[in-house]
């Protein structure tokens, strides 16, 4: 679809020709994000260089009733940045300046197109770092992190993006600019910033953000333990948590992902059914004390081998295989689908057993690599699209895993977001009323639903007429039965 020529002319006048993409071949670059299965070519792509230019584009869209979708690096895995066919993509890639480094306050102010890793790189020489570390941190942007409330392996101890953002400049869907928070952590009034972070680009466009940076820990130690099974490794995780140890990260990989990682990047993992990587950071003596305890827990829990990284080189090697796990799956399977679900940590082994049953039931293999410390599973459903019906079967298996997560009181997504991918699954976790109340919030920001429409919320158009089955919200299960 194309926009009315006068609209395109107005946008061009605001941004200059270099700030607008309208050639069909070039528009195709923006047709999807990391969820490559959903592709929609936008009507126009804009590349603003400043808040004022973002504001200009949003105002034009608002006046003409044109949908718009903000986009960072396009690494999102839930289709949160999938364009609208009749709409405008607002790429923030050119807003990539680090505006201010305020070491004394422990704050860095950046534009949305700055990559996650660039924040740490900008302050590392001074002994600081930015804690949230999504796997895509080399390319993903802070703007996208704010939209998705991104986590990462180390959010177990240090929290998600929402814990590390102290201030936001936001262009609202009507083009107004508001400033939320600041450099202080305690603010008066309702926490609009708290709910904006993680709203998947549906409440406005953040154009500047102030982030909290942390002092680099004086000690980081990493332990790798080999177990016969993922259940054993999962049980060790529960033991570590019960022992009151706050690990920086706890990750599990199963045999299938170990094989793939070994073939791809040769991390030299032990030959076993599952490995657990535990990383501890902080005061050197505390880390030493905790490390000894973690090793003991792993041994008592049936670990066949335990290794402690002797130096940063070995530590990097422990992580290399973990970080390459998704990509390495290409070595053992033609195609794979990454699921993202969360379970209470005490239910890890129960759900892993269920995934094993589902593998047999569907006749497909599932690789399990996950943030065990916070119960965030990333099952990789392996399939081969050249085989008839297999993609569909893989999709169904992935859905069944999500249902297994919900059955034990978990969540539809720990970090990838709902986007377009899981919008139709929202009724598994939330009632119609819950969703209607969330929509009320959206109304306050965007009554015309122009800002990233078609995301998060199930619509008949997106999901067909039949909504999925509603399951009791975990909070209801925990309490007295009631629902209006």
């Amino acid at each position, binding site marked *: 679809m194309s926009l009315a020529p006068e609209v395109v002319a107005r946008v061009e006048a605001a941004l200059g020709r270099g700030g607008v993409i309208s050639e069909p071949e070039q528009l195709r670059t923006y047709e999807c994000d990391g969820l490559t299965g959903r592709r929609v070519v936008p009507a126009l792509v804009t590349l603003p260089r400043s808040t004022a230019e973002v504001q200009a584009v949003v105002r034009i869209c608002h006046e003409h009733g044109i949908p718009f979708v903000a986009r960072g690096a396009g690494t999102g895995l839930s289709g949160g940045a999938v364009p609208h066919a009749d709409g405008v993509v607002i790429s923030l890639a050119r807003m990539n300046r680090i505006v201010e480094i305020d070491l004394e306050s422990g704050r860095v102010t950046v534009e949305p197109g700055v990559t996650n890793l660039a924040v740490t790189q900008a302050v590392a020489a001074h002994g600081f770092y930015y804690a949230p570390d999504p796997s895509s941190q080399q390319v993903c942007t802070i703007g996208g992190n704010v939209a998705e409330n991104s986590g990462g392996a180390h959010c177990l101890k240090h929290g998600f993006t929402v814990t590390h953002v102290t201030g936001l400049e936001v262009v609202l869907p009507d083009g107004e600019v508001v400033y939320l928070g600041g450099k202080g952590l305690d*603010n008066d009034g309702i926490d609009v910033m708290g709910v904006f972070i993680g709203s998947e680009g549906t409440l406005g466009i953040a154009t500047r953000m102030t982030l909290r940076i942390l002092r680099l820990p004086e000690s980081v130690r990493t332990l790798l333990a080999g177990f016969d099974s993922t259940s054993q490794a999962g049980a060790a995780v529960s033991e570590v948590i019960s022992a009151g140890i706050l690990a920086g990260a706890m990750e599990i990989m199963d045999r299938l992902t170990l094989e793939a990682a070994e073939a791809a990047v040769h991390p030299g993992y032990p030959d076993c059914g599952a490995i657990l990587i535990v990383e501890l950071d902080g005061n050197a003596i505390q880390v030493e004390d905790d490390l000894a305890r973690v090793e003991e827990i792993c041994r008592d829990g049936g670990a066949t081998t335990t290794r402690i990284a002797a130096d940063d080189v070995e530590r990097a090697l422990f992580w290399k295989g973990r970080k390459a796990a998704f990509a390495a799956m290409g070595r053992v399977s033609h195609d794979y689908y990454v699921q993202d679900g969360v379970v209470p940590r005490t239910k890890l082994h129960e759900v892993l057993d269920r995934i094993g049953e589902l593998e047999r039931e569907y006749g497909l293999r599932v690789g399990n690599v996950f943030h065990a410390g916070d119960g965030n599973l990333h099952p990789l459903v392996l399939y081969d699209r050249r085989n008839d019906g297999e993609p569909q079967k893989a999709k169904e298996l992935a859905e069944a895993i999500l249902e297994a997560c919900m059955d034990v009181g978990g969540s539809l997504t720990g970090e990838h977001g709902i986007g377009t991918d899981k919008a139709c699954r929202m009724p598994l976790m939330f009632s119609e009323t819950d969703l209607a109340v969330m929509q009320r919030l959206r109304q306050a920001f965007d009554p015309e639903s122009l800002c990233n429409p078609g995301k998060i919320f199930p619509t008949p158009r997106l999901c067909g007429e039949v909504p999925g089955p509603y399951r009791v919200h975990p*909070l209801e299960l*925990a309490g007295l039965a009631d629902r209006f």
Partner: protein
Amino acid sequence: MPTVSEPASVDEAAAVLAEASARGASVSIGREDGDVVLSTRSLGRMLEHEAGDLTATVEAGIRLSKLNARLAQAGQMLALDPPGDPTVGACVAANLTGPRRHRYGGPRDLVLGATVVLADGTVASAGGKVVKNVAGYDLGKLFCGSHGRLGLLVRLSLRLHPLPAATRTLVATADDLDEVYRLTQLLHFSSLVPSAADVLWEGQGSRLPIMFEGSQRAVADQVDRARELLGGEEGDARVWEESRARQGAARARLSFPPRGLVQTLAGVGEAVIRPAAGSAYVPDPVPEQAEAGALLLAERIRKTFDPQAVLV
């Protein structure tokens, strides 16, 4: 005379609000200025505590002291330590924190999920009870600092922390704001990991209590190193009681960039300062700090949740 209502279930709370809004009565939560004064006094139960998950689900009316006494049996805590003994719902609604927000964050960082009753009696849940979850709008966070104007918080799922094996406090001293700032910056640029670091500002002889938590050995190490860096003497829990009491007696909170501590506090004779958070609790009221656009947006949100302005 206002009617006092103390619902004992979510159903009852919803019925009270639905009825009040239907007849055009005003309702206040935690304050006494509505036609109906709604209290969560009878909504104070612990509903679930999964020790292995470090999570708990509670009714919003449970007092911090009661909750933490229960959690302590499993060696855990909700790491909120505001002055007094508020309910967990009040901590969220008023965005209350204490000295240990330095390490553990505030209600926003500890609330995993919430069930709320809106002014018209609608009951809705958001978030979840797992520690990691990004499904849907996180309304629990929106309700942080809502002061009862968006709806009634009835149930909360919370992130817990293990109780530390050891806790020790060092108290440094400073005679003027420049010295306060110098010491807090030394701490900020060190690799020490305190759980709390306050300034009890009162001019000459001001104290800077710093709390360390962890294993016996690690805490001893940190106290020794902090003493070398900042001077001072070892203190005990009383200094934190004093800090919380003075915070509780304060009538306003200033929010400032941590770098602006000296300028912000210049001319202020007395305050409890949390330097890393950029917060100072001061005896005298201060003007509203939020930006006008943000206030308008907050008001728009309030109106969509409570269009009839039932909640006052």
